[in-house]
């Protein structure tokens, strides 16, 4: 037995010392290449995942046996023409570079059907669609009054009038609508019996709850906001002054804070850019003030001397400033990212990326890529303009975990492929009436729009349903208790 044990031991040791390095080399991408140039060569891989899955992969016109998601291994460093085909879907082709020891990852290829199927959802005609960011509802308008507004819940696919038929606000004309991402409330600036005022509304299928804020808010207020984490406190800006209203206590304070040029709200804190260029953070009551920037020279060089800045706090360390003229600044080097023209921004929290659009360009500001490499001069995130051929871009949305961008350019809605190694694919999805807003929900994977001919509400499936399961669970929404909101309707 001792002899047998010893022999077996040495056999196993030999196996380990021969096969373990080979396994590791293989794992790292090294293979033995026979032939005239024989020897160990570095290889790379291509990882391909598609939605829907099960597509066939062709590499330089050679059919690969495995269906997507799949990994193509043992590829020598080179450019490869990859084609992906799925029955009844548009083929996807691209030249993909492969480097030794590296993985070329095509993780979220969206294969669109040959013919996109539009689903009729609500018969119109509707005048417009009011999207509400990060909400399970949006508004459909048949006319200019509150009574002509319909709430559409895309989760349940149900719709109902915003107001009951007997509401005193049925004929109130809507001048502007304000919503805040992740908030269930809406603020309407209305013309009611000749008076301009604000109405605070919580849409509910059983009867929306409305609160008249006329006694607190005067005309001329702009940049009205509230914190989704503390919805009862509404802030507004007017001529360098900040006001607030508490909808619970029905109190408010005009000119609460003076000498400001911008503000933003995040997790029960208010961020204020003061006219002297200092930037502070404090709680909603004005306490716990913390100075974040106290450098008047830098403040002045960044923000200039006039103009309002809308402050978007996406996390405690990612703060963006959007000026009236479309200037885009951030609290990261190089601070100033766009000199002007930015019409909108949209944050993708999972990857710390911000979608930025101007009239004719779409860009991505990626905060996850900062501080890469060792440089003598610190280099911050960069704004990459990924699409520059727009004419009148008015809306843009993240699609499929930040891998695509859906945008409305005038009367056309496009899908733009972001994660690409070659020329990105741009798909023409549908047409809408010039100026009509659209809405895209990552949770439902559908684009909602008004059909130009009939003005009915339609839904267009962008993300296959089964692939939604792979996405993170949608945010849980809890119905708020209307206990402290007076029902006036």
């Amino acid at each position: 037995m001792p002899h047998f044990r010893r022999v077996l031991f040495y056999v196993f040791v030999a196996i380990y010392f021969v096969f373990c390095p080979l396994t590791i080399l293989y794992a790292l991408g090294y293979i033995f290449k026979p032939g005239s140039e024989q020897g160990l060569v570095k290889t790379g891989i291509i990882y391909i995942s598609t939605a829907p899955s099960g597509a066939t992969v062709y590499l330089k016109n050679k059919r690969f046996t495995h269906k997507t998601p799949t990994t193509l291994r043992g590829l020598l460093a080179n450019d490869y023409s990859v084609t992906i085909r799925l029955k009844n879907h548009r083929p996807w082709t691209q030249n993909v570079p492969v480097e030794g020891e590296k993985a070329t990852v095509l993780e979220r290829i969206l294969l669109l059907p040959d013919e996109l199927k539009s689903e009729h959802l609500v018969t119109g005609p509707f005048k417009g669609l009011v999207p509400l960011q990060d909400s399970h509802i949006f508004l459909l308008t048949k006319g200019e009054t509150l009574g002509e507004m319909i709430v559409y819940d895309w989760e349940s696919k149900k719709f109902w009038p915003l107001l009951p038929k007997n509401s005193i606000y049925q004929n109130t004309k809507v001048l502007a609508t304000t919503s805040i991402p992740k908030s269930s409330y809406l603020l309407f600036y209305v013309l009611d019996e000749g008076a301009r005022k604000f109405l605070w509304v919580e849409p509910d299928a059983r009867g929306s709850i409305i609160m008249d804020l006329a006694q607190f808010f005067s005309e001329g207020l702009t940049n009205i906001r509230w914190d989704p984490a503390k919805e009862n406190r509404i802030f507004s800006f007017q001529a360098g002054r900040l006001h607030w209203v508490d909808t619970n206590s029905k109190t408010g304070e005009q000119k609460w804070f003076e000498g400001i040029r911008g503000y933003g709200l995040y997790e029960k804190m208010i961020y204020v850019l003061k006219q002297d260029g200092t930037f502070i953070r404090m709680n909603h009551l004005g306490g716990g003030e913390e100075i974040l920037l106290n450098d008047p020279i830098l403040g002045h060089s960044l923000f200039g001397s006039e103009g309002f800045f809308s402050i978007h706090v996406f996390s405690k360390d990612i703060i963006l400033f959007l000026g009236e003229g479309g200037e885009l600044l951030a609290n990261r080097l190089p601070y100033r990212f766009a000199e002007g023209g930015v019409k909108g921004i949209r944050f993708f929290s999972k990857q710390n990326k911000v979608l930025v659009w101007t009239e004719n360009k779409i860009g991505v500001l990626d905060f996850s890529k900062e501080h890469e490499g060792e440089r003598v001069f610190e280099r911050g995130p960069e704004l990459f303009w990924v699409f520059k051929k727009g004419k009148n871009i008015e809306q843009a949305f993240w699609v499929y975990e930040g891998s695509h961008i859906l945008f409305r350019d005038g009367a056309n809605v496009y899908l733009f492929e972001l994660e690409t190694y070659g020329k990105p694919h741009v798909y023409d999805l549908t047409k809408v009436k010039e100026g009509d807003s659209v809405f895209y929900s990552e949770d439902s994977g559908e684009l909602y729009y008004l059909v130009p001919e009939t003005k009915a509400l339609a839904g267009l499936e962008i993300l296959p349903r089964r692939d939604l399961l792979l996405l993170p669970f949608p945010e849980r929404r809890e119905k708020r208790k209307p206990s402290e909101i007076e029902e006036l309707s």
Partner: protein
Amino acid sequence: MDTFQFSPRGLASREKWLQRFFEILPGVMSWAILIGLIFLSFSNSLLAAVIMIAFYFYWLLRLFYMTTFLLIAYLRLSFEKGTDWMLRVREVDGLESDFESWHKSDSKSDFGKIISLWAHERNLETLKQSASPPPFSKDIYHLVIIPIAREAREVFEPGIQSFVSGQFPARQIVVVLALEERADEKIKQDAHKVREKYKNTFYDFLIVNHPDGLPGEARAKGANATYAAKHAAEYFQKKNIPVEHIVVSCFDADTVVGPDYFACLAYHFMISPDRERVSFQPIPVYHNNIWNVRGFTRVLEIGSSFFQLIEATNPEKLVTFSSHSMSFKALMDAGYWPVDMISDDSAIFWKAFLHFKGNYRVIPMYVTISMDVVDAGSWWKTIISVYRQKRRWAWGVENFPSVMRGFLKDTKIPLPKKLDLGFKLFAMHISWATWGFLLTVIGWLPALFAGREFSSTVLYYSAPRITGIIFNLASLALVTSIILSLCLLPKKKPKHPLRERVFLALEWLLIPFIVSFLGALPALDAQTRLMFGRYMEFWVTEKKRSVRPLHRLRQILK
């Protein structure tokens, strides 16, 4: 022979520092491996992934290597199942000469018997060539010490009954119930009732009360056993029974031996030329209550039995574990079991090994002894009890500093042997405390915390595939273990045989939980305690057994 102080207490200054250093070393090494790999998973995921693949590959080969010896040991155990050990004892005695005819008539048709006889013939040949005539079996006495602290009568009596039912004459067995003075009155009364019941069956039946708190003693089983052994030594001296003819067995209270145990033990004692320099290690199985316990404990204890089976195939490095036997003279010469250590079962081997300058070994015996699986009632209490039991077993790491001190001091044991055994002892405890975590948790961290750089490498995509292949191959070893466990378990007449067997096989899916939380964690706990000098005292494992008639003993022994 100059005496080496195995005990860690009351050491001189230099020895004390050495002791502390070797106490700290295993814990530091285990934590360094775990923390180092966690840190590396964050800081250099690629390197961590490469290390993990190398480890997985090593683990796979080690698994196959161990499975090979598990199979060999299991076959050997099966081959020896029908062996008539008393017949062999008599042959060694030279009293009977029917060996030739016996093996000629039966052996050719049974491969197992051929192997068994081949081993026997080899043993006989070795004995013949030695200048060490064996004692006659009629002169051999078995001293069985059963330490009792909290164990109820229904726990220890089946074991005593099993001695009576054996092939070896009970009149040559002396049973000593080593009773802790602090034990409950009920237990003491029960001990005396059992003595009354069996005193005329054995050569003698003694009850030795071990006083609490003797100087230099810890609340450890070894202290109780040593006190009883010393008492027995005086007893044998009075009876003029030479210690050279006595084989001592120190059994846990729940130990039930098979009918062939003492015969097999006597045979191995007689046939071993160096019988005064050996311990005898049976295969511990946990069958007493195996069908009445929870699945995870069953899997765990079958795993323990398998480990001992594998160890049995490597007598050169075998260390005593749990209930075992040894030459009483060797025990006396080595200075008995340590009175201040928890792991008395393995400590006595190392103590003897150092005392006899490396001229000491353990002979594996392919017979089983059965013990109880931990059962503390509720699921949660059982988990806690199992955890504590495994921590106590893992506290065997306390031997490492004493052994290393002994090796450093000794000049006669060959250096390669010291390195071999020292490394094995160290590596065994380190792997015990780390492998479970590496396999179930830490191995996945490089992929989980992969940075952008690592996630764009070939390795990031290859590693899961390679790991998958390795784990699939490892499942072959698992399947082997499942099949062997089904073969090893005592027979039961279940209501739904197929369903129960399927459940039994599925219990092995608990392996990831078991290796981490009831394997590695208690070991890491024990090493950490030793590292910080928080020494453990003996804690009696809860083993419940419903009171049942002794006639069920036969069922246990099947």
